[in-house]
């Protein structure tokens, strides 16, 4: 990995950290549970992006399995929250 790409990755990681703080802020102040569920959804997207950038930064492909497992499992959490909000139970 060349030096300028490493610096670009670090800057992108910093801005992803800013997005994480914004999502956590909405998760704290969100007036109702649906707002918090949306913030959780966006937060899982930010974390997947962070894992991708750290894979590139460290030159390791070990953690890349976590990316597509999280794309599958993060969806289940928010849909379960949606069912629970709509009907008062999940199944």
């Amino acid at each position, binding site marked *: 990995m060349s030096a300028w790409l490493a610096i670009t*990755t670090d800057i992108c990681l910093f*801005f992803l950290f800013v997005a994480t703080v914004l*999502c956590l802020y909405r998760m704290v102040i969100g007036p109702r549970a649906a707002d918090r569920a*949306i913030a959780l959804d966006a937060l899982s997207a930010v974390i997947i*992006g962070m894992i991708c950038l750290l894979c590139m930064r460290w030159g390791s492909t070990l953690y890349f399995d976590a990316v597509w497992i999280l794309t599958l499992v993060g969806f289940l959490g*928010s849909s379960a929250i949606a069912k629970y909000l709509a009907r008062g139970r999940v199944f």
Partner: protein
Amino acid sequence: MVVEVLAALTMTVGTFFIVVTGVGLVRFPDVYTRMHAAGKAGTVGIALLILAPTIYFATSDPFVSIRGCLAIVFQFLTTPGATYLLAHACYATSYAAHSRTEIDELKDWLPTYPDEEFGRE
């Protein structure tokens, strides 16, 4: 070299969309507009961010690229579905839209009921 430029470009644009998602989550007034921010800009941003290591590892480790393409496909399949389910749940439990919302076309189609359990602020 071309691979690195492409990876840097996709990850910069993806980070821009993710930050736009965060700003939209904080700034937008009600839950439906926040869903608009998180469901559209978030999906595009995360797809571009997964595309960056997919391009970067394409020559050194092709199987990682295959997994990256799978992750992008799953992301485009699952995130809009989850956002739709949440929006449906919010509307069905009569989560009030912002006062400047002018058109509510769903009113004739979808019955709403007051939310006893989660209706409190």
